[in-house]
């Protein structure tokens, strides 16, 4: 059995080496980018020809629900994003018009950021913390990440849902990890992808 024990030791070593070279997956922030589109199959996009697009992109924050004024993302970033959306819509045959020109569709963009934080602390502190105050405060470790999302919704102003709200006929959502600086190429690539995977948006 001596050989077997040696073999177990060697195989454990190989196993640990394997663990060390275990594939790690994503390396860069844009490896996490996700483009998601959702369509109402029953809607006939070919019947329309015009759409309206605002010149600002609202930033969704919790305070909007409390009646605060809307916040917008910086104009420099918004203009690049809106130009890219316009370019894609044009390629699909849509003509951009003002909102008071009775457009067939409204394209409503919005963005938001969210931060996920993980907290670690010594979970047993609740139990003995009061009895052994000299042991100090429980150590807390925090780490986290922030993600950014851009949503584009296509709405037919002539259709109103049962609850009185507009109905989204198409939704494009781009989500990714925020890298600390605005990356135009990354956002434009994701916008292009959202439209590329929605060929049914093409109008006559």
């Amino acid at each position, binding site marked *: 059995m001596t050989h*077997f024990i040696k*073999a177990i030791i*060697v195989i454990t070593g190989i196993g640990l080496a394997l663990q060390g070279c275990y594939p790690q997956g994503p390396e860069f922030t844009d490896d996490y980018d996700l483009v998601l589109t959702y369509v109402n199959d029953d809607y006939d996009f070919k019947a329309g020809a015009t759409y309206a697009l605002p010149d600002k992109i609202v930033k969704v924050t919790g305070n909007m629900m409390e009646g605060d004024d809307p916040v917008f993302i910086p104009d420099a970033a918004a203009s690049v994003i809106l130009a890219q959306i316009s370019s894609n819509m044009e390629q699909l045959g849509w003509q951009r018009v003002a909102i008071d020109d009775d457009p067939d569709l409204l394209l409503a963009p919005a963005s938001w950021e969210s931060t996920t934080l993980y907290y670690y602390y010594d979970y047993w502190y609740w139990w003995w913390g009061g009895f052994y105050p000299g042991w100090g405060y429980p150590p807390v470790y925090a780490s986290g990440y922030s993600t950014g999302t851009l949503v584009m919704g296509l709405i037919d102003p002539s259709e109103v849902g049962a609850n009185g709200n507009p109905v989204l006929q198409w939704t494009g959502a781009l989500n990714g990890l925020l890298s600390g600086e605005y990356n135009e190429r990354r956002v434009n690539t994701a916008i292009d992808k959202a439209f590329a995977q929605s060929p049914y948006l093409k109008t006559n």
Partner: protein
Amino acid sequence: MKKLIIITLCFLSTHAFSQSLTALQYSIGFGTGDLGSYISKPSFRGVAIDFRKLVTPSIGVGFELGWHVFYEGQSGETYTRGNLTYSGNQYRYNNQFPALFAADYYLKPGEKINPFAGLGLGVMYSLRDTDMNQYRLTQEAWNFTLRPEIGVLIEANASTSLMISGKYYHGFEAGELPTQSYFALNFGLVFKK
């Protein structure tokens, strides 16, 4: 049936010769069927250990433990489910952990080149992780597994041989996964005692 095999193996092992073989193997895996469709790239991260007690010079019974890691990154692929279409990088991992009772038949025992054929029977734990964006989908299964093997032992000296073998793992549908199968090419060292 399962009980009968286990009892037979135990019975055989109590009547074993004192000789035993322990094989350490580096293993390259090639997914087939569902596993091959999920990850088309071969796995170069695999190990296996085989132990056989020789009940006759031609027959060895024992067990096998293994670990194979299949991995493939899919770049910017598009997937559709109903009205929902999503695209992005996907990182796919499939870990296979076979744990099998095994028996081998050696065609030319005692000779320098000793071909053999064997069969393994047991379970394989399959763990599949699909990472996309910040999400991970985990699927797992304990597959009842059959594993035929053919190979050859090449004697290096009185106590050590080199081994080359091909194994085919067929894990029947179980848990959250369909049939998991793959072929493994093994290169190993065999210690005789």
